C-alpha cells in the first residue's frame, strides 16, 4: 500500500508491505526494514527501523496521526492511495466549503464577522477564552462567511461548529 504523508510543508510517499516477519517501507531509493509491534495498552507501539528502536505513541484519527516519539509531538497527515483518489473526486464536487470549529472548549468572547462578511487569510473571526487566556481563531484562507453558529458570551464544546465559510 502507498501512503502519502504530510508534516508541516513537507510531503513524503512511502510504499509499505509485509516482508517476512516484519514490514518493508520504501521512500524513493531508500528502503527500510520495519518491525512494528503494538504494546499492551493499545496506542503505544514499539517500532524498529533497521534495528533502531523507537517508542511511539500514536493516536490515529482517520487520516490524522498524532504522534509522540523522541520527546517530540508530531501531527502527521497520512492518506493511503485509495483515499487520495477518493478525495480528488470529492474535492471537485464539494467546492470550497469550509468550517471553523472551536479548537478547545471555552467561552466565545467576540465574534468579529457576520453572515456575508468577506474575510482575508489570517483574519481573526472569533475570539475564544479558555484557561484565563484569549485565543483568536483566524481564517485559514480568504473567503466569505455563509453562516454564523455562535454568539458572544456563549460556552462552546471542543469541536463545536462556529462558522461556515466558502
Amino acid at each position, binding site marked *: 500500500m502507498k501512503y502519502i504523508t504530510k508534516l508541516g510543508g513537507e510531503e513524503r510517499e512511502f510504499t509499505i508491505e509485509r516482508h517476512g516477519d516484519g514490514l518493508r517501507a520504501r521512500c524513493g531509493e531508500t528502503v527500510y526494514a520495519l518491525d512494528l509491534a503494538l504494546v499492551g495498552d493499545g496506542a503505544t507501539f514499539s517500532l524498529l527501523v533497521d534495528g533502531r528502536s523507537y517508542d511511539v505513541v500514536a493516536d490515529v484519527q482517520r487520516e490524522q496521526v498524532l504522534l*509522540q516519539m*523522541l520527546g*517530540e509531538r508530531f501531527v*502527521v497527515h497520512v492518506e493511503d492511495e485509495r483515499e487520495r483518489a477518493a478525495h480528488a473526486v470529492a474535492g471537485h464536487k464539494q467546492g470550497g466549503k469550509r468550517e471553523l470549529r472551536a479548537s478547545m472548549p471555552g467561552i466565545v468572547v467576540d465574534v468579529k464577522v457576520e453572515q456575508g462578511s468577506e474575510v482575508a487569510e489570517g483574519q481573526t473571526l472569533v475570539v475564544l477564552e479558555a484557561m484565563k487566556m484569549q485565543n483568536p481563531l483566524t481564517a485559514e484562507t480568504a473567503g466569505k462567511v455563509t453562516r454564523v453558529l455562535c454568539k458572544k458570551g456563549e460556552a462552546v464544546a*471542543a469541536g463545536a461548529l462556529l462558522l461556515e465559510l466558502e
Partner: protein
Amino acid sequence: MLSRYPSTRNMPPIRRILVANRGEIALRVIRTAQEMGIETVAVYSDADRTALHVRRASRAVHLGGNKPSESYLDIEKVVAAARATGCDALHPGYGFLSENEDAAQACIDAGIEFLGPNPKAILLMGDKVEARKIAMQAGVPLVPGLQEDVDEAHLVQAAKQVGYPVMLKAAAGGGGKGIRIVREEKELLEAFHMARAEAKGAFGDDRVYLEKFVTRPRHVEIQIMADKHGGVVFYGERECSVQRRHQKLVEESPCAALTPEVRAQMGKAACDLARAVNYVGAGTVEFLLSEGKFYFLEMNTRLQVEHPVTEMRFGVDLVREQIRIGAGERVSPVAEPRGHSIEVRVNAEDPDTYFPSLGRITRLNLPGGPGVRLDSALYRGLEVTPYYDSMLAKLVVHGENREQAIARCERALRELRIVGVSTSLPVALRTLQSDEFRSGDYDTGILERLDRKPPAARRELAMLAAAATRFLFAERAGARAAESTATGRDAAPRWATLGRIERLRRSAP
C-alpha cells in the same frame, strides 16, 4: 492512624492542616504533612470531587462551585471549613489565597496558624512601589528609576536621568502585564498615557513607575526561610530566565552566571529585606542579574512553584520547614548544596501555538530512575478543564553537575508521556537541546529566540512511523472484517471496528 507514631522529640503543636489549594501543590503539602504524622483536610470545588488532593488527604470538605471565586478563593468558606474540621493551621500553597493579606488576617482572627508571613508583610510586598521603598531602605540594590508614582511633569527629566531605554510599569501589576519599553524620548509621553490607561483597566489603579530597562537580564531569585524568633536563612538561588509572557518554563540551580561573591551579596540582600518586614516562613526575593550586577525585582511572599529545584540541591523539605516554623520552631541549619537541579513545568498547551489544550488524560507514562522527581496531581482519567491553571506537572531532576542534569532532564522528558492533551514538553526539550541553554550564557529572551521546529531527521522518522501505524491498523481492521464476514455478521466500518478491537483487548482481565 496516621499519628500512630508521632515524633517523640519536640513535636510541634500542629496536628491538622487545612490545605487551601488544589493540584500538585495541594498534594505536595499533603505528602509532607502525612510524613510528619499530621492530618490534612482538603477542600474542593464541584469539578475537583475526584481530584488527587481530595483522595490523598485525611479528610475532605466540599466548597461547591467550579469557579475559583466560589471555592478556593472564598476566604469565608475556606476558613469555615478549617474551623469545622478542627484544623490548627492552614497552608495556602501558591496562587489562590497565598498572597492575600485578608486570608492571613482571617486565619489569625479564627485562631488558626496561617503558614506564611503576617498580613502586613504580604500587603507591603504586594505593592510594587512600597516594596521598592522598603528594599531601598534595607540597602537592597534597585534598578535605577523612580520609586514613586511618576507624574507627567517629572517624567522627561527622570527618564533622561535614568538613561534610555526605560520601562514604564504598572504599580499594581504582575505577571508581566502593563509593561512598556521606551527607547527614545519622543515616544515617552504617548507610552506613558497608554500605560496609565492599561493599568487602570487591568488593575483599577493607574499608578505607573519608571525604571531603567536592563539589557540581557537574567531572572535570578533567592529562596529564604524565616522563623518567628528573627532567624533568617537562605538556600542559594534559582535561575528562572527561561520564560515567556513572564511565565517560567525551565528553572535551574545554581545559576551558571553567579560568582560566589555575588551569590553571597544577593543572599544577604534577600535576608535583609525579609528582616525589614519581620518576615516569617518561606519567601522568594526576585532579582534581575545583568553584567554581574543585580537589582531587586519583587518579593513573593509564599512557596514558589519551582521550590523543588532548591530542595533537591540542599536535601531539604521546604514544606516541612514551613510547618515547623508555623509551630514556633527555629530555622534549621542550611546544608551544603550538592550538584545541579533543573525543573521543567509541563503545561497543557499546544507546543506550536501555546493555546491551552483541554481534554481527558487517556494515557500516562511517568519517568523514573535516578535523580528524577515528578510533582503532579495527574492521573489517568483526569479531565483537564478550563477552570484552573494549565500546569499539569513539574519534572525536576538532579545530577552531579550541570551537564549531567541537562542530560538527565532530556532523558526524563522523553520518558514522560501524556496522552489526551497537548503539552509544552517539546518546547522544554528544544530548550534543553539548544546551544544557548547548554552554554549557560542566556537571558530572559531565550525562548523568543528558540527554534521550536524538530530537526529534519526526526520529522522524516515521524512521517515513516505515521505511515507504518496506519498500515498496521488497516491490516488489523482488514483481518477483523474478514473474520466478521466469515461469522456471518456485518463488517463494521473499518475505523469503528478497529477501535472496538482495541477496547476489547484493553479490557481483557
